[in-house]
């Protein structure tokens, strides 16, 4: 196995984020504990990472012996994940104020989680996948419990940690079995090749199937699909809100992408076995997530269930990817969906922070939105847009995300699943638009007429998200082209080639 120094260019974004993380924590310890300084450095650093992701590229398709992917698709994902971290940090800026947090640690943890997500999203090997998942998760456990003075935050961390570690056990066991069953392969492409060798006189061992099942479970946990979703509402509710926003967008995106890579590129030959399971899981996830969200009174919890249902829609793309000839469509749909979901979800959480902050008790009850439109037409308008986009009503990004993913699933022939998906999103209108009803059609209360005082950082997030949602809803062409052309050439590097 050879190692080419230029391979490092392929993981330059990861290295950059990691260095940034170390830099931030060192600055906090040694130089300055000023929030402004640390935030500024983190934000500028992340912008630099975006540039690095785009411009610093290794030309080799097969880096680190095929352990990570190096292509446009992966690059877009890294930009997306950096963007998620950037918005999370912007969102945190004024949230952290007066909470007596060690901001440097906080930013460092976000950056470390981002490193994990980037590794995960680019991994094409079980080893890198595992490392990515764990780097991401461990940082997130700590982030969920970051408000150590708050019981709910503690509880969130505890639940997340215990269940997360539990699911890691299954994931690892699955990896071990898959490794054994394929004769020592950990590379996705190699696994795919090894699996084609089975059949006829050489039947696959039972533990191959068990291994795939266990890996599937481990990943389903990370994307919070029913029935492995139980952690997510509690964790989302208890974690500091910017962290919730970050968790609902980033880790989900990274995990669903590796899901797609593993099942679409390594295991399509096994699709007869896993597609039905995922189909059932996706259907149950879409329906359950949306149904339970209906009766939520806390907006963070409601958005948690909403994000569960969105994981269900995303799973449709994974399922479609198992069908020959559809996988690049599915990948493109997923990329578009992730971008849309990121924008609308981050936006919604920003408004949630704003509204709750103006309350005396700082709670997240949906009642707080009554009559918001009267005093804060712009904020209410932005929130309405986010909700409409989450519902999937045109002309918003959310609509095209769904259209794109659903049409990939239709092409792959999963029409009943799409019918369930459309029905589930019809149900989702009830709770998303309830917020709109509260804002526009309920009289304002003494509480809701208070000034929300959006700071420049929050205003920026809302404006950027709104504009991009409308842009992608009206002119989705360019983004779709990017998604499509990059997903046509997703590399699945083969490790055997480099063994000289």
């Amino acid at each position, binding site marked *: 196995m050879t190692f080419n120094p230029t391979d490092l260019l392929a993981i330059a974004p990861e290295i950059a984020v990691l260095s940034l993380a170390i830099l931030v924590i060192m600055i906090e310890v040694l130089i300055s504990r000023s929030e402004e300084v640390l935030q500024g450095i983190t934000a500028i650093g992340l912008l630099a990472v975006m540039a690095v992701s785009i411009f610093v590229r290794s030309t080799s398709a097969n880096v680190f012996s095929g352990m990570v992917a190096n292509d446009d698709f992966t690059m877009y994902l890294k930009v997306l994940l950096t963007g998620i971290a950037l918005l999370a940090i912007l969102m945190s800026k004024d949230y952290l104020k007066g909470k007596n947090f060690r901001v440097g640690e906080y930013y460092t943890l976000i950056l470390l989680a981002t490193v994990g997500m980037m590794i995960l999203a680019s991994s094409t090997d079980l080893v890198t996948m595992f490392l990515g998942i764990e780097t991401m998760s461990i940082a997130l456990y700590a982030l969920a419990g970051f408000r150590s003075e708050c019981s709910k935050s503690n509880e969130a961390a505890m*639940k997340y940690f*215990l*269940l997360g570690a*539990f*699911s890691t056990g299954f994931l690892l066991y699955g990896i071990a079995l898959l490794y054994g069953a394929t004769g020592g392969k950990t590379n996705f492409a190699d696994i795919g090749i090894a699996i084609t060798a089975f059949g006829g006189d050489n039947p696959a061992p*039972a533990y191959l*199937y068990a291994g*795939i*099942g*266990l890996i599937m*479970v481990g990943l389903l946990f990370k994307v919070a699909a029913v*029935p*492995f979703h*139980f*952690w997510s*509402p*509690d964790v989302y509710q208890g974690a500091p809100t910017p962290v919730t926003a970050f968790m609902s967008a980033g880790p989900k995106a990274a995990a669903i992408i590796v899901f797609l890579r593993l099942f679409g590129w390594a295991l399509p030959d096994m699709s007869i*076995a*896993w597609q*039905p*399971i995922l189909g059932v899981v996706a259907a149950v996830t879409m329906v*359950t997530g949306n*149904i*339970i*969200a*209906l*009766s*939520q009174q806390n907006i963070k919890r409601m958005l948690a269930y909403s994000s569960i249902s969105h994981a269900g829609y995303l799973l449709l793309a994974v399922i479609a990817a198992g069908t020959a000839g559809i996988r690049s*469509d599915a990948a*493109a749909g997923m990329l578009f969906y992730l971008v849309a979901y990121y924008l609308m979800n981050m936006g919604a959480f920003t408004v949630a922070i704003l509204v709750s902050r103006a309350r005396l008790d700082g709670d997240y009850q949906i009642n707080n939105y009554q009559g918001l439109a009267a005093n804060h037409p712009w904020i209410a308008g932005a929130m309405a847009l986010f909700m*409409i986009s989450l519902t999937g*009503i*045109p*002309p918003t990004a959310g*609509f*095209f995300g769904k259209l794109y993913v*659903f*049409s990939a699933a*239709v*092409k792959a022939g999963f*029409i009943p699943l*799409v*019918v369930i998906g*459309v*029905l589930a999103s*019809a149900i989702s*209108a*009830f709770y998303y638009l309830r917020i709109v*009803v509260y804002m*526009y*059609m*309920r*009289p304002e209360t003494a509480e809701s007429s208070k000034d929300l005082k959006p700071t420049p950082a929050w205003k920026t997030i809302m404006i950027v998200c709104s504009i991009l949602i409308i842009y992608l809803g009206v*002119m*989705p*062409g360019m983004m*779709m*082209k990017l*998604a*499509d052309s990059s997903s046509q050439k997703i590399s699945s590097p083969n490790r055997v080639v480099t063994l000289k």
Partner: protein
Amino acid sequence: MSNYLYLIPIMPFIGFLINGIWGKKLGEKAAGYIASAMIGIAFVMSVTAFFELLGHDPHHRVIEKEFFSWIAVGDLSIPFGILLDPLSAVMILVVTGVSFLIHIYSIGYIHGDPGATRYFAYLNLFVFFMLLLVLGNSYPIMFIGWEGVGLCSYLLIGFWFTDQAKATAGKKAFVVNRIGDFGFLIGMFLIYSTFGTLTFSGAMHGAELFVGSTAIIFWMTLSMFLGATGKSAQLPLYVWLPDAMAGPTPVSALIHAATMVTAGVYMVARNSFLFIMSPGTMEIIAWVGVLTAIFAATIALVQNDIKKVLAYSTVSQLGYMFVGVGVGAFAAGVSHLVTHAFFKALLFLGSGSVIHAVHHAHAHAGFKGDPQDIRFMGGLRSKMPTTFWTFFVGCIAIAGVPGLSGFFSKDEIIWMTFANGHPAIGVIALIAAFLTAFYMFRLLFLTFYGSWRGRKDQEDHLKDSPKVMTLPLTVLAVLSIIGGWIMIPYALGGGMQFEHFLEPVFEFANNFAGEKGHPSHMAEYSVMAISIILAISGILLARAWYLKNPDIPARLANRSKLAHKVLFNKYYVDEIYNFAFIQTFLGLGEALWKSFDVLIVDGIVNGVAKLLGWISSVVRKIQTGLVSNYALMMAIGIVAVVGYMVWKI
């Protein structure tokens, strides 16, 4: 003009932006003028475009402009384009024309309301989406319009949101429309999976070449029709429309009578090439249409709220349009769509004028009563002459009095049911026509004739509405009279220019259906004669009951005891048949309204929401908050997944 077609929808959008952003600063008056001016410009552009289209050879009357490649990924390619063909040209003329008049009317109607600028902004946004809906050249664009008009309708119904009932009505409209949207989306996905394209022309091409099971076409068209029943208020999804009357009256006129609710009919007409391939769906459409027509007409018989009568009447008339397209007479369905837009907008605006006047009278007299209850009106003819005359024209137009627009379009539909071999549907449609004449004239007589049934001090304050409101009424009245003159059938020496204009759009459908043979003019005359007799007798009966002997309906209400006396009453002894007949319908109307409408259908719609909420409150309990339970659930899930995987080998 054809290069600037996109400006037609853009104009109202600009109006929306101006009023939405600076409305508060501009003030109510300026907002109204800007909104109206934008629609006016769009209307002029539509007329220009229409004449340009007319200049083409009939078979080349299609202007399809693709402005940019909206979505182009892999084999999914959706250009952002506008399709102007005779069908969409008719639609944009109706939409911009009628909404222009309604915008002007609104200036007077909404005067003094604190939310007036918001109102005009929403109204403009609505027109934008409606134009997008009819002009789009692909399903996604149509869907954007489809969702957009739904959203605006929702906002406008709940416009006076301080009133809880109004906000609830808005919500109901939204819920029902979601069900419809679900159908539309599924239909769209089925079209995509079958034909691999989402443009109308692509789908049409695909339909031409289509070989294979028509089952898929059946499901495709049925899902789309489900969408249409939601938007166009057909059985069983009509419930939201009567409730939607909670919104301002011009909104009812524009959205819930003239334009948005006809979107379903437009959609079926636009997809005539698909629907015609599925006789099963067509049969369903025709039956749903005719049942809705008669069902809503019977309910309209017993309503006392002036707008509710008109609302059920709209549901009923939409039923006729679906009968038209359902029996394959697409052009006839669209004709009725157009004439209905005129006379129903007229009637709604007229009712708005009445409500406006009564409301002011009540306000002056310091009386808090329902200004929409016709039981407390009467004698308005002399107080509000313009409103009365125009309303009268609307009534005779909808009743089907020969020579007016409603006669030609409705008669064509009824005739086509017989000509295309659906006599049962035709008979029901004729009965509904009789009921239509009856309930409309009941409304007219109760409102405008007789003497004022309210208090004297109110009566003194009644006066006709301002010019800005009566002028649109006059224009619409003229249109309601002459609008049908381009639809006069050959049998009456007409040229059916309207049908010929639309013909190229439905060419595929008509060829597919094949030649039905030419029934004689004699048959057509007799159907026409029957329908005229029914209309006239409906009017006369209403006159007899509500004008000459206003106590009869009240006695009929207590009929069970009096039935015997009534039947042998010397006055009506020769009208026994008529009586038995109408009694049944009155009773049926009352019963349907109270049981089926209020309890069942309404109950189902509200029930679905409640049921989902209940399920949700139960299912959420599985989230116990205990880690150990979560771990157990996960373990069960894992055993299931791994078990299935291993068992599968």
